[in-house]
């Protein structure tokens, strides 16, 4: 499987993500410059964490006009895989490839810590190595991760099983305390209707080696490598 990690000015998890894919998981992985119009034949486009274009205006708002986003949109429309991590998730929302928007965290604090997540849908291409209800421990690092969508959109994504991850406690219970940023329905990660585009606020690349404090992020990355919905 060939991965392409998009580099925007202000991306700061691009090298970590490339390292996790290439050095830890032994995949073919290349950087893709946001101003190019070339996906270099990758199977999966990864929009990494960081602050694309400084997150000026709104998180991800300027990044959606980066030249490469045209090819990313076409890739997604053809059924190609797209994974947006943190800022990458915000970019996918701004692009309209995923429904909803991000608001500032409910406590108005930048949150940088491990959280626990419950796997809601284990049948996506991004979670086929997980069990339904499995609790994953993966870190977050964001200011704007408070997921919002109008009630009708929320009902749609629930009905289509598009919610993949929810913030939960260590026992997998949904509590207000576990929902650290105030996201509607505790949504931490979701896929599009077709199931080939996923966005999540937690950083799987930061939990891909024991040295980093955990390896649960590999469940997500290795699911993509396995490369099929089960």
């Amino acid at each position: 499987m060939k991965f392409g990690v998009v580099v925007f000015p202000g991306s700061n998890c691009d090298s970590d993500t490339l390292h996790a894919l290439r050095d830890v998981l032994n995949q073919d992985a290349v950087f893709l410059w946001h101003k190019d119009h070339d996906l270099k034949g990758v199977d999966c486009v990864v929009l990494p964490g960081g602050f694309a274009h400084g997150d000026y205006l709104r998180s991800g708002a300027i990044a959606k006009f980066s030249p490469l986003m045209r090819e990313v949109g076409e890739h997604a429309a053809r059924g190609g895989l797209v994974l947006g991590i943190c800022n990458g998730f915000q970019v996918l929302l701004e692009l309209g490839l995923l429904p909803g928007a991000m608001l500032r965290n409910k406590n108005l604090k930048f949150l940088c810590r491990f959280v626990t997540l419950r796997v809601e849908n284990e049948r996506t291409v991004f979670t086929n190595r997980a069990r339904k209800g499995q609790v994953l421990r993966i870190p977050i690092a964001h200011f704007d991760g408070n997921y919002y969508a109008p009630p009708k959109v929320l009902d749609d994504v629930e009905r289509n099983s598009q919610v993949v991850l929810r913030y939960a406690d260590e026992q997998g219970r949904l509590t207000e305390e576990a929902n650290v940023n105030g996201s509607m329905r505790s949504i931490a990660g979701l896929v599009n209707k077709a199931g080939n585009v996923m966005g999540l606020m937690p950083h799987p690349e930061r939990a891909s080696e024991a040295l980093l404090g955990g390896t649960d992020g590999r469940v997500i990355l290795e699911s993509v490598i396995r490369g099929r919905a089960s």
Partner: protein
Amino acid sequence: MKVRILVSFKNSVLDPQGQTVKNALLTLGYGFVKDVRQGKVFELDLEGIDEAEARRLIPEIADKVLANPIIEKFSWDIMP
């Protein structure tokens, strides 16, 4: 020609920053403040465009770039 565009959260969207400002004002004794909504102001300096065209294109700019229509609304006017 200068235009001023105001972007703020829709009424259906919680605005925790506005709430924090409101709480600060109440703490300072301004008990008559019932609610605060925080927003963004953009001032655009235009040239080579007439007013009719500006009236057509400013909402387009606001809708496409300055505001996220899922969570935000906008209003605008031509500055005197």
